[in-house]
């Protein structure tokens, strides 16, 4: 048996081959990462804008919405345990609307992530569920894409409502003595979204001036 086949030699040689493979394939991966990064970032931005367009009429503001934001820390009123981001829409530098992230903590299957837009005059312009695990075919009508009533999706009833129209105490489903409709058989999802939308509207109206005044990109 020659010295070439000692354990040390074999393991060094094997390790070298392993390292070689690692280097080659890591290079391939980083090259792909660099090549795809611009496209991935662009589609992430696009996706955000598409969502915001659903809750806020695209023509109602003229600033670069995604660049004009403030970050907030944990905000119980919005259900944000880890903080979130609020975008500010302006028209000719005057406040037009706030787009807020909010969380309904009490969905049927955990937290329901929402995006809520509130115009500067205190009207809710739209609510969308961006992330939830409500039961498919039952509670997931909170997402208009899953809602069977395509003409009048359930979540559309919040658009255009202000606290003057519906007092904060009335932001409940009808079953609880409130103002808003729900679908029989899945009240919990509707209740959670209704409460969260009401609280978010309340928060936006109460903190409007502070939110619009803060410098872009700052943290409140």
């Amino acid at each position, binding site marked *: 048996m020659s010295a070439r086949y000692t354990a040390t030699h074999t393991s060094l*040689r*094997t390790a070298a*081959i*392993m390292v070689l*493979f*690692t280097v080659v*394939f*890591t290079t*391939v*991966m980083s090259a*792909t*990462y660099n090549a*795809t*990064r611009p*496209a*991935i970032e662009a*589609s992430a931005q*696009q*996706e955000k804008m598409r969502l915001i367009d659903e809750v806020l009429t695209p023509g109602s503001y003229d600033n670069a919405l995604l660049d004009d934001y403030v970050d907030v820390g944990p905000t119980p009123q919005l259900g944000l345990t880890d903080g979130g981001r609020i975008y500010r829409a302006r028209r000719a530098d005057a406040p037009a609307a706030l787009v807020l992230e909010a969380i309904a903590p009490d969905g049927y299957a955990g937290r329901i992530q929402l995006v809520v837009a509130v115009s500067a005059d205190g009207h809710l312009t739209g609510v969308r569920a961006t992330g939830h695990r409500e*039961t*498919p*075919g*039952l509670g997931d009508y909170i997402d208009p894409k899953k809602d*069977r009533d395509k003409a009048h999706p359930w979540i559309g009833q919040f658009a255009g409502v202000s606290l003057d129209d519906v007092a904060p105490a009335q932001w409940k489903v009808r079953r609880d003595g409130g103002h808003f409709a729900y679908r029989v058989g899945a009240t919990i999802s509707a209740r959670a979204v209704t409460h969260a939308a009401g609280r978010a509207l309340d928060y936006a109206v109460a903190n409007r001036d502070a939110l619009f005044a803060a410098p872009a990109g700052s943290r409140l």
Partner: protein
Amino acid sequence: MNLQSFRENAWNGLWKQNPGLAQLLGLCPILAISTSMVNAVSLGLATILVMAVANLAVAALRNLIPYEIRIPVFILIIAALVTIVDLSFNAYLHELYLVLGIFIPLIVTNCIVLARVEAYAAKNDPISSTVDGVMMGLGLVWVLAVLGGLRELIGSGTLFTGIEMVIPGLSPLNVLGDDYPGFLLAILPPGAFFALGCLIALFNWLNARAAARGRARPAAVTPAPAAASAAP
């Protein structure tokens, strides 16, 4: 690679050793993603891509990979390829990525990919290995398509939901009409087990019947049409 071995690869992948029905490897995506036909086939196609390229890469490099460390190297190659597919989907098929995003990384742990690399590509030439990868992938895709179609049809009464994300301009079929109440169980994970169980039973029954016929008439060269029509 001649026609004979091509046929053999195709037959093994599509039927005899079908990954979804016979080898029962890769159940993780089969059960998780087969809630609708489009999801199922899309992930299946991504898996074909990974399997074909992984088999090709391993077969081409097989003489450079020491036997003792072949498994880490295989995993490295598969993981790199899946990362590339993941990034490419995110960049160029973003809509679909939103649906499949969380499942694409799971292709790494899909046993069928490693199984074919280990059992086939490590011992065969690059061309047959690529064919094997594609055929095994296609075998998985048709099972995924049938399973996804079945669950979608029974669960929500539609077919091809989400096709507009893959091929813009096409729209889903509402087979059972707007009044169909839906059957939740088919969409939930247990539905995947039930549906797959039924498919495997059908597959085994067809194989058993074919075997029984083969024994009954070993001399028969061409199957008589009468025998086919007599079957239930």
